[in-house]
């Protein structure tokens, strides 16, 4: 690990001042990814600004929205009663990620800003356009089982590893930012970038710009949302494919609204906008679910070891939507107006 200066921010203004808009500065949360990358000398910041002392507040607002402090721990968010009741897909996504120990350390902002787990990014004896721009990508012809099938480029096929961000993408979470130039807010779907020719530029954040809070807008039908994750072992593994889903089905069995996002398939948490568009107004049937999944995956491209993800994603999307629909049907049959999601495992 290279030498660095360590400082502790007392508040947001202090953190922004300490970072000074410098690209060589990193904000430090729980350290679960950054410390590892520094030990491997993949990340070599000259200074670290510890922002774990900033807001960890979890606020449930009367209008159904929530505001989560950037330094809130992943465990605290998943355990929060209002998060569990209002946005079960978010609680489930967090709980499906990493291990108990890591969730206790990791912060909201750190989870959003974590970097890919592409093996070639971590191994500095290989070529990687993300680590060393312009050198090439050894994943393209290498072991690419965990790599992207959507939105990839010839320069980079890495995936964003977060589970939590998949739920945030589906929920249209708004990320509040602060820098020397002032405050702004970004929909999380605009925060992460696709790789294109510049895979080393992963987010829309400017150097020294700080995430201060994550706002989740109200979404009435998210109370029965689910998170489905498929991985190579039963627990403590990154997603091969994951799906965060919620649907609002009317009494005439047509789909009024839907939220759908995929994990493990792209350089960013993948909001399945094409599938959503195909579903809105369609009858809530298996045929509609399959057609929507096909619409989303029409442009999917497999590599030598990961082409299975295309069919896997199709099946997980359809299965998740059917589970949600069946749960509604059984609630209607039982005369219940409200019930708890039991999905996501």
């Amino acid at each position, binding site marked *: 690990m290279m030498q660095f200066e360590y400082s502790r921010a007392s508040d947001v203004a202090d953190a922004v001042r300490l970072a000074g808009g410098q690209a060589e500065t990193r904000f430090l949360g*729980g350290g*679960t990814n950054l410390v590892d990358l520094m030990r491997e000398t993949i990340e070599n910041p000259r200074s*670290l600004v510890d922002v774990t002392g900033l807001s960890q507040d979890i606020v449930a607002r009367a209008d159904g929205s929530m505001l989560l402090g950037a330094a809130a721990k992943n465990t605290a968010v*998943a355990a929060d009663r209002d998060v569990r009741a209002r946005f079960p897909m978010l609680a489930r996504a967090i*709980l499906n990620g990493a291990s*108990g*120990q890591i969730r*206790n*350390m990791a912060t909201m902002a750190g989870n959003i800003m974590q970097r890919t787990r592409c093996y070639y990014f971590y191994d500095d004896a290989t070529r990687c356009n993300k680590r060393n721009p312009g050198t090439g990508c050894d994943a393209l012809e290498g072991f690419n089982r965990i790599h992207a099938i959507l939105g990839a480029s010839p320069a980079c096929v890495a995936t964003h590893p977060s589970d939590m961000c998949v739920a945030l993408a589906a929920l249209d979470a708004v990320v509040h930012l602060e820098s020397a130039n002032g405050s702004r807010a970004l929909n999380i779907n605009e925060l992460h970038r696709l790789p294109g020719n510049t895979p080393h530029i992963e987010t829309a954040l400017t150097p020294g710009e700080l995430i201060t809070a994550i706002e989740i807008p109200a979404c009435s039908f998210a109370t029965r949302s689910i998170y489905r994750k498929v991985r190579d072992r039963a627990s403590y593994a990154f997603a091969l494919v994951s799906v965060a889903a919620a649907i609002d089905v009317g009494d005439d069995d047509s789909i009024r609204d839907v939220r759908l996002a995929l994990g493990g398939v792209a350089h960013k948490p993948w909001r399945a906008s094409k599938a959503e568009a195909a579903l809105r107004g369609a009858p809530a049937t298996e045929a509609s679910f399959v057609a929507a999944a096909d619409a989303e995956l029409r442009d999917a491209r497999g590599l030598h070891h990961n082409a299975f993800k295309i069919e896997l994603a199709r099946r997980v999307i359809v299965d998740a939507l059917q589970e949600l629909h069946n749960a509604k049907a059984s609630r209607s049959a039982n005369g219940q107006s409200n019930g708890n999601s039991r999905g996501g*495992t």
Partner: protein
Amino acid sequence: MRFIINGRGHDLSIDPRTSLLDLLREHLRLTGTKKGCDQGACGACTVLVDGVRINSCLALAVQYEGRAITTVEGLSAEPELHPLQRAFVEHDGFQCGYCTSGQLCSAIAMADEAKRGIPSALTEDLCAESISLTHDELRERMSGNLCRCGAYNGIVDAIEATLVAQNAGAGAGGHLPAAAMAEESAR
């Protein structure tokens, strides 16, 4: 910088690159906590901070100044063993023993998490008031601790025989050692 380990204060001057794990092992010779992968994949380095389990290999020590840190050495006062340690012996919860201190610390905090109602990926009803530590729940919650000898059945048996039984008992006391408990009650 002042570090509080197993209830005792230590004043140390350290390089900010020092991990909490290296602080414990190399600076304080508390070698009960083990370095397995040194990248957060195996859980051998699990310690408790204010009663909460973390991977000490991924923790920069400077971030934990003044916090109450408990290692396997602090789980009980010598020569006594913590009840979970005795259960590991009785149930063959280890072979080589390298992962054991991490398993012990992790399990103790895991049972406390369940007692506080924190759900897991396997919790059927997310909004349930209390958590029942079933066999599957326990395995899911302990998935951050690998045992390359494969002593999982013994580990699970030992945890079920002590912590789960204790969680199920009405009004049973906590599992956290005295130092962590004092910190908990002070918060």
